[in-house]
C-alpha cells in the first residue's frame, strides 16, 4: 500500500523559497496530477518525492515511512522523465531489466518481468533495438516499461509527453490512463498542460508560485475554480473576464456601463458595492439562433473580430469591456469579421471573483 503524504514541505535554494510548505495527501492507487505554469514548483515537488532533491523542511511519507533522508533507491518509486532518460548503450530489454539486474534478482525473474512489461506496452518486437533506433513514442513506452518492471509503490511522471508531437501525445495519454487502470498503482504526474491534467487525473493539484492553489477532481475544479488564477488556467479556451461592480439592484455593472442581472443566489452572496471580476466560460454563452442559454440568460450585442471554424463548432472572438472574449458557436455558420451578433450569457453559470483577493465569491 502506498499512500503518499506531504506535510509542510519546503524547498529552499539559498534565500529563495521555491516550494512554500505544501500539504498533500495522496491515496493508494490514486492518479494525482500536479499542474501549473512553468516555475510553479511542481517538478521540484515531484523530484523531492523521488529523492532527487533534498527536502529543506517538512516531511514526506511514502506508506508509513518517512523518506526525507532516504536515497532514491530506497524509496521504491519509479520515475518517467521528460527526455525519456533511457540508457543509450543498452538495448530495450537491457533498459527494462536494468533495475532488476542492479537489485541482483535471479535471471528467470528478470526475463519474466521484462516480458510482462513489454507485453503490456507492446514492445515485444523492439527488444533488441538501441534507444537511438527508436521513435519518440517508442522511447516513451520503454521509459514507462522501465518504470513498470520494478513494481514500485509509486509512479512519478515528469512531463512525460512534452517532447511528443500532438497526435502521439493524445495517443500516449490514453495509454497512460489505460496503464493506470491495469496496474492500479499510485501515480503522481506533473504537467503544464491542463488538458493532459483534466483527462488523466483522479485529482488535480493546481500550483502557482510554490503554493497549492486548489485540489480537487477535474470537473469540480472546472466548475468551481477557487480563484481567478485557477479559473483562467483551467479550461480551453480560457474563461472570459470583465471588471465590474455589484450594484444595489442585484446586477453587476461592467466597466463599459452595461448592467447584467445577477441570479438571486449570487446577489445574495455578494454584497452591493463589491468590486469584482466577472468570469464566464466560452461554452456558457450562446449565439442567437444557435441554441438555448437557459432561463437565466441575458442578451448582449457584440461585433465579431475573428472566427476560427473547428468543424463541429466555431470559436468567435470579439472585444468586450476592453478584453478579448471568445465564445463557442455550436452548429456553426460562416461569420465575417465586423459582423454584429447577439449573444446570450447564461447568468446562472457566471463566476464573480473579488477584485483584490481574486477569490471566487
Amino acid at each position, binding site marked *: 500500500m502506498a499512500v503518499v503524504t506531504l506535510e509542510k514541505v519546503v524547498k529552499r535554494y539559498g534565500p529563495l523559497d521555491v516550494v512554500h510548505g505544501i500539504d498533500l495527501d495522496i491515496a493508494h492507487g490514486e492518479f494525482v496530477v500536479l499542474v501549473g505554469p512553468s516555475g510553479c514548483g511542481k517538478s521540484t515537488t515531484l523530484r523531492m518525492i523521488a529523492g*532527487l532533491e533534498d527536502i529543506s523542511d517538512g516531511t514526506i511519507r511514502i506508506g508509513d515511512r518517512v523518506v526525507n533522508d532516504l536515497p532514491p*533507491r530506497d524509496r521504491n518509486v519509479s*520515475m518517467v522523465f521528460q527526455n525519456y*532518460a*533511457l540508457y*543509450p548503450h543498452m538495448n530495450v530489454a537491457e533498459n527494462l531489466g*536494468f533495475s532488476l539486474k542492479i537489485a541482483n534478482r535471479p535471471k528467470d525473474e528478470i526475463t519474466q518481468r521484462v516480458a510482462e512489461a513489454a507485453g503490456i506496452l507492446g514492445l515485444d518486437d523492439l527488444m533488441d533495438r538501441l*534507444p*537511438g533506433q527508436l521513435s519518440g513514442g517508442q522511447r516513451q513506452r520503454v521509459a514507462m516499461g522501465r518504470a513498470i518492471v*520494478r513494481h514500485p509503490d509509486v509512479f512519478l511522471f515528469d512531463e512525460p509527453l512534452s517532447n511528443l508531437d500532438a497526435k502521439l501525445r493524445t495517443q500516449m495519454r490514453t495509454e497512460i490512463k489505460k496503464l493506470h487502470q491495469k496496474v492500479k498503482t499510485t501515480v503522481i504526474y506533473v504537467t503544464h498542460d491542463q488538458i493532459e491534467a483534466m483527462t488523466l487525473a483522479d485529482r488535480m493539484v493546481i500550483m502557482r508560485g510554490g503554493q497549492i492553489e486548489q485540489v480537487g477532481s477535474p470537473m469540480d475544479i472546472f466548475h468551481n475554480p477557487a480563484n481567478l488564477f485557477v479559473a483562467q488556467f483551467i479550461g480551453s479556451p480560457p474563461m472570459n473576464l470583465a471588471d465590474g461592480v455589484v450594484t444595489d439592484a442585484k446586477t453587476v455593472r461592467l466597466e463599459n456601463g452595461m448592467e447584467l442581472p445577477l441570479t438571486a443566489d449570487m446577489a445574495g452572496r455578494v454584497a452591493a458595492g463589491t468590486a469584482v471580476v466577472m468570469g464566464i466560460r466560452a461554452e456558457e454563452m450562446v449565439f442567437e439562433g444557435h441554441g438555448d442559454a437557459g432561463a437565466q440568460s441575458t442578451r448582449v450585442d457584440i461585433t465579431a473580430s475573428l472566427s476560427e471554424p473547428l468543424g463541429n463548432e466555431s470559436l468567435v472572438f470579439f472585444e468586450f469591456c476592453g478584453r478579448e472574449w471568445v465564445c463557442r458557436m455550436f452548429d456553426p455558420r460562416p461569420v465575417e469579421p465586423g459582423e454584429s451578433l447577439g449573444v446570450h450569457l447564461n447568468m446562472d453559470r457566471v463566476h464573480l471573483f473579488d477584485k483584490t483577493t481574486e477569490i471566487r465569491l
Partner: protein
Amino acid sequence: MKRKILSPPVLLLLPAMIIIVAVILLPLLLSLYTSFTPFKLTRPDTFYRFIGLRNYERLFTDVYFWAAFGRTFVVLTIALNVEMMLGLGLALLVNRAIAGQRTLRTIMMFPMMFSPILVGFQFKFLFNDNIGLVNNALQSLGIAQAIPWLVDEYLALFAILTAEIWSSTSIFAILILAGLMAIPRDPIEAAKVDGCTVWQTFRHITLPYLMPFMFIAMTIRSLDIARAYDIVQIMTAGGPARRTELLWTLISRTGYVDANMGLANAMAYISIFLSIFFTWYFFRKLMAARRYMGGAQ
C-alpha cells in the same frame, strides 16, 4: 575556344595536391627508398646503392632494436593506463567542485604549458642522485643511501614515466572532464531512482558515456608516447648503456650520430607499425563506444 586540359575540380585542387606531393608524398617515398640502401649522410654515393631488404634483415636479428621496441611498448602501456586512471580521478574531482571550477581547470592544465624539454630538465634535476630534490627528501626521512634514479634501468624508466605522466595526465583529465560535462543529467537520475548506488551509477551509466572521450585521449596519447623522444633524450639520452633506449632515441642516434640514415629509416618504418597498431586498436574501440552514444538523445 581553348581546349580544356583539366576539368575545373581537378584544376582547383591542383595547388593543394602539388603541396601534399611535395611535402608529404615525396619525402615518404624518398625515406622508403633509402631504407633499401646503405645510405650514410657522410657518403652521398651510397644513396644510389640498392641493397634490397638487407637493412630489414639485419634489424630482425638486432637485439638492441627489439629491446627498444619492447621497452617503448611497455612504457606506452604503463603511461597510458596510469595517465588514464589519474586523469579520470582528477576529472571526477574537478567536476564535483562547486566553486572555483574554472580556476581548477586552468591550474590542472599548467603541466601542458611547459615544453617537454623543460620538463625533462626539471625532472632530471629532481631525480639527480647527488643534488636532486627526491634524494634530498629521502635523506631527511632517514634513508641515508643515495638512490641512483637515472642510472638503474628500472628506476630510470620509472623516473622517465613520472615525468611523462606528470606532463600529460592533464590531457586525459581535460578530455574526460569535457565528457563529464556533456553527460545528460536525466539518465544518471534515472539510474539513481532505478536503485543504483553511487558506484553502480558510475560503472553502468557514467563510464559508458565517457568511453568515447577516453578512447580519443588514448589515441592521441598513444601516438605521442610512441614517438617519445624529448623527455627521454634530456633525462637519460637512452642511456646509461642503452638501459632506457626507446625507439626514437635509438633511431635518431642511428640516423644522425652514426649517420646510418638508411638503417634508421628502416627502423622508423618498422616502428610505425606500433603506432598504427595502437591507433587502429583505439579507433575500433572508439567506434564501438560511439555507436551506442550517437543519436540516443
